[in-house]
Each structure stands twice: as C-alpha cells, then as structure tokens.
C-alpha cells in the first residue's frame, strides 16, 4: 500500500489517537488488509504503542492482518439465516471455492468469512460478495452467483 494514502487517511483524522479504529477501518477498506508498513506508519503518526494497534486489529472482526482475495465472500450465519439453511449454503461455498471461513485460496480469488447478521433477515439465507447482497439462496443458486465472479 502506498504510504501517501495512509498519510492522507491519518490527516483526515487530524492524527488523533482516539481515531485509531477509524483510521484502521479506512486502511482496511482501501487495501483490504492491514500491511505491517501501514501499521508502523499509524504507530508513528498517531503515537500509540504497537501493542495497542495489534490488540485492536485482532479484537475487531473487520480487520485482517493477512492479504485478502479479490472477492470477499461473507456468508451470514445470523439466526434467521441459520434456521433457513445457511449451513447448507456455507457447505456449498466451501466446496465451490475449496476454502474454509477465514481462508483465502491460492489464486487469491476468494476470501471466505462467516458473519453474524447482515440485517437482511427477510431474505435469508444471505451471501454478500464484495458488498453486494444476494438473498433467498439455495445451494445451487449460490454456486451460480459465485461463477459470475472472475
């Protein structure tokens, strides 16, 4: 990641230590993961210890300390989706992509995560790919959706 971009993000938050989470969120959004150099820069400019940055980056689920695939696949495992068969959708995604939740495939095509509720309970089971929500999924429809991504 370009350090100028990191600097710009930090500038937007006036280098305030209390903005640590917001700064990391923006880096994550732009780069899809938090590279070590970026965290070093944050440490330096926000003047917070690396231990605290590591604590934040591992405590909150939005952050990743390893590179992510081109497409971020989120399977909702919220209650409404659970009772409507989210488990089977997840099994299908695992068999299509060959990865388990938390993993990224070797081609860096997909990263798979389970999430606890996307708030689209009326449309369950729900899968989100790169922020786009796909609802009322059957395992077969799930495979079709994934095939649409390069």
């Amino acid at each position, binding site marked *: 990641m370009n350090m100028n971009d990191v600097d710009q993000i930090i500038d937007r938050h006036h280098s305030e230590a209390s903005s640590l989470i*917001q700064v990391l969120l923006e880096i994550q959004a732009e780069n899809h993961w938090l590279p070590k150099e970026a965290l070093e820069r944050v440490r330096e400019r926000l003047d917070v210890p690396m231990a605290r940055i590591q604590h934040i980056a591992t405590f909150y689920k939005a952050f990743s300390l390893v590179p992510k695939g081109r497409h971020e696949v989120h399977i909702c495992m*919220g209650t409404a989706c659970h009772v409507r068969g989210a488990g089977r959708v997840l099994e299908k995604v695992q068999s299509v992509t060959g990865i388990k939740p938390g993993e990224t495939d070797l081609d860096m095509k997909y990263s798979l995560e389970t999430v606890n*509720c996307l*708030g689209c*309970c009326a*449309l369950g089971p*729900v899968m989100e790919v790169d922020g786009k929500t796909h609802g009322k999924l059957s395992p077969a429809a799930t495979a079709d959706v994934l095939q649409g991504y390069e």
Partner: protein
Amino acid sequence: MTRISSPDQLEEIRQAILDQRDPNAPCVTVCAGTGCLASGASRVIAAFKEEIERRKLKVEVGFRGTGCHGFCEKGPIVVIEPDETCYLQVTPEDVPEIISETIENKRVIDRLLYVDPNSGEKVVRESDIPFYKNQKRIVFSSNRKIDPKSIEDYLAIGGYRALTKALFEMTPEQVIGEVKEAKLRGRGGAGFPAGVKWESARRAAGEPKYVVVNCDEGDPGAYMDRSLMEGNPFSVLEGLTIGAYAIGSHEGYVYVRQEYPLAVENLGVAITKAEEHGLLGRDILGSGFDFTVKVHRGAGAFVCGEETALLMSLEGKAGQPRPRPPYPVESGLWGKPTNINNVETWANVPLIISKGADAFTSIGTEGSKGTKIFSLVGKIANTGLVEVPMGISLRDVIYKIGGGIPGGKRFKAVQTGGPSGGCIPEQRLDLAVDFDELTKAGSMMGSGGMIVMDEETCMVDVARYFTRFLTDESCGKCLPCREGLRQMHRILTDITEGRGKEGDIALLQELAETAQEASLCALGKTAPNPFLSTFRYFSDEYEAHIRERRCPAFACKGLISFYIDPDACRACKICLRECPAGAIDGDKRKIHVVDQAKCTKCGVCFEVCPSRFNAVRRISGEPVPPPIPEEQRMISRKSAGQ
C-alpha cells in the same frame, strides 16, 4: 440554502416546500432500503427515472427513493401516490406498464398486487395489506414518505417542529419532565426509563457532557435500527439534539456498525444537510444552543453494543466492558457524564415532544408505553419489520401480521431478545408483549428480534447455536463468560452430536448459574439464557437427545439417518441423481438404497423425493432397517405401475 436562523424562517421554508408540492400529483415511490436493494430495487429505480424522462408525460410525475417499508420479503416495493397503489416484487420490465397503465390511465395492474394467501383476495392499497393493517406505525411510518437524503422531505412531513418547540418553548427540565411523564423506556434491550437517565446525566458533575446514539445493532435477526437509521436519519438526529439540549451537552456521537454501509452513508448526508441548514452546529435556529455530531463506525464486535464497551471503542480502544457503577451518566466517555440511548429510543423523542406525553402513554401497557418495532423473521410467512403497540399478544404478531407458519408446518417457539434472549413456546403465545411480561417468561425484549421456529427447528441445536455465537463474541475479559460459555458450548455440541450423557444437564445448570452470577457485563450475565429457556420449556427434547439418541425435530445430523422405504420407492432416480455424496445405489426399475456409510445427512433426498411417493424416511433414535437384499430390488413392470 442559507442557514435557518429562527423558528419563523423554518416555517417559511417549510411552507415554501409544501407550496411547491401538489399532494394530488402522481408520485412513484420505490423502497431503497437494503432489503429491496438486494432484491434489485436499484435497477427498478433506474428504469423508472429513464421511463419518466423518455415519455415526456403530460402530467408531472414525482419520483422518490424511500427508506425501508418493512415488508422486505416482497421487495422491491413500489407505491404510487396519492392512491397508495402498492406493487410488490417489481422488476424493471414492469416499469413501462406501470407508467402507461397506472400513472397515465389510472388502471391497477392486477398481477403486481399483494394476494392474500388465505382468501386469494387482491389488495390495492399498501395500508390495507394485512401485514400493515394490523400494525400501529408511528415511529416507522415516515420511512415510506421520505427520501432519507432529503431534508426538504423531512421538513415537509413536519420535521424539526419538535426541536423548535423544545428550544423555544421549553426549559431543559421541562423536556426531561415530558420524557419522564411519557415513561419512555430504552429500546435497546434493558428498558431503563430514558427520562430518568437524562435527569441523572443533567445532574451529574463534570463538563463537557456527551450524548451517544447506539446503532451497534449486533443481535442476529434484528434490523430495525438499521432501517430507521437508513430510512429516517433526520428523526434520530432531531431526537438526539433535543436530548442534548435537555442534558446540557454540546457534543454527540453516533456509533454505527460498519456492516451497515447504507446507514453510515445516509446518516453522513443527513448530518451535512442539517449543518448547512443551521439545524446542527453553532447557534441552532438562532436559539444560542450549540451541538455537533460525529459518526464513529464500529469495527465488528458484538460486545460493543454493551454501553461501557461501546465507550471504550469510541475512545479508540478494544471494546471490553468495565464494571458498573459508576454508570456512564456519571463517568462515561473520557470519564465525563455520557448519556447513551438506542436509535429507536432517540427516534421516539421528537414524537413525544411534538405530540405530548399523553398521546404517547395512550398506547401500551402499564409498565411499557408506546410502540415497539420488531423484526419478524425465521419460519414465518410475512417476514419483515413490524411496529406494534406494547401489549399486543404474540399470537397476533405471528398470525395476524406474520401470516403464520409457511408450508403447513407447526409452530414450535418464538425466540426473542437476541442471542441472550429466550424461546417462548406455543402455550405462552397469548402473552402480552412488553418489557416485563417477556422477562417473566424467561426471555427478554432485547432490541426486538423475533425469530419464529417451526417443528423442524431443534431447540437443543438453537441453544447450541446461540451459545456458540456468544462464545465467539465474548471479549475474554472475565473468566465465567470466557471459559464457562466455552464449556457450555462443548457440552451442547456433544448432546446434538449424539455424545450426550447423564449429568450433562446438571453441569450445564451449574455453569449457567456461575456465568449469571459472576460475569462482569450483561453479555455474560445473560449468556446462559438460550440454554435455560429452551430447557425450561423443552426439557423433553434434551432428554430425547441424551437418553434415546433421538432428535425429535430431525435437525441434528449426528442423530438422524435417511432411509428409503423399499415398498414406497418407485425407482424414479431423482434422489439418486441429486445426492451430492453419491450415497444412493439403484437404477431404473431397481429400488434405491442409501449407503449409510457414505451418507452426509444433507437431506437432499428427503426434499426431492416426489410427494406422491414419499419414500424417503428420516429415522432418529432407532436403528436403520437393513437394506433389502440385492435380488429383491428389481421392480416388475406391473408393480411399477405400467
């Protein structure tokens, strides 16, 4: 637009907006909430804009992308005003017809209307649809009337009248008095009286004081806060500003989950517009009162919905709760007095101030006033957000509004209150829904999720599911929660996978009691509820799992087998083709047999077997009959029905 510097100027601007609008002119409104967008609303919106532009219509047609209407199941939702003609599951291909038929010729398109599944009757007006007709929409009613990004729309429906009244006609004490008299209780879960909290914050020593909107809606199965924040952000901001005035705060924060990008976006637009119009910032409406609001996005931690954890997160730290007291109203953000309320609570405030406490208390029960928004989801015909008066019976919510259980299945339980809530069984369906009654039934109001479960939901599995959720979301600070939940989850998993043993229940009860007594925050204290409430009402299911290795709901994979009844099988090959594990042996005219060693218990064969044969049986708690001998598997032509 210039800053509005007096109440008179606000009214002039409101009048100017209303003068420009003809209430009888046709206006197409499309729901642009997350649910409808996921169902393709953005393409419908684009199609409408293009078609209205292209046609050069004789009459002027308005267009509006609105907030969530609540009936997300049937999206995209299109409502044509002023007749309120409601079309459901609209596609871009329907758009030219809607313009030519409904707008130009005032004819209703039958096939897009709601059809009552019981009577087969079609319903034209949105508010006549049973799902809406039996609700009492007050807080949520504006969502469908306004574009959430348009302050003009909000002013047109009377927005900011309550703030004007509070700032110019009431003292802060009077505002607090009104909210206390309205007996408004916090909608986020605990149900603490909002007015009492405000009063403590006002009296607390220390400056500056902060007000916070809790929109960290982490309960799976609940999304009313998201829909309010997305659909009507100005109402939340207006409520927050009134609260800030009452408490004596000049700085506010809105804590929103980052999983809700549209809520973050619409809220950001609303704050900018309110600032431009002088409804936020310095000297609001010329009253001399200053108030600014900042947005803080959560980074994905369920525990941050707990107020002390939320404050830690606002300070840029890991969201770990701390013991209370001191409560945030005395020592909150940066150690200063901080008043935190949930989105829905804040959105109720302008209504109480403008209509008065009496109007608010005319709805509801003795201890719980006003309405509550629930998200009615799971195994229910009409899924969506419903706003109902406190005190309505669960039966009315599930059957009159929700339309009952789909697929002819039997109702088993409704889970309320989020992961730490409880399951309420059929025999308690006449319970009047309010804060106190739900607690008495062993559940809680929580933020208002209502997840309906039918006969195919296993209650032990539900307890395991929620306990796993809470184990994952435990922040790890205190031991009873961190380790106790882990052990509870392990035992519950054993039970659902057929390894349950005598003594498990007693151990679960002991762990539950310890977590309830000794955990630091509400997450740990209430975490045993999923086990306790399911055991309270469904102990027979626990016993069946442990003693008979039987799952009565046929949901726990470790305890069920699939078996093809040789007398019913007609060798149609459907299940054989569909089985993803290749576990079914058979051929044309050769009876199919499940290879139990290969079967992954996915249930596909059970679902695809044609109902006229019904040959696939689910077996639990008893041995699977041996497969029929090879030489008896061929079906003769005659018995195959030819």
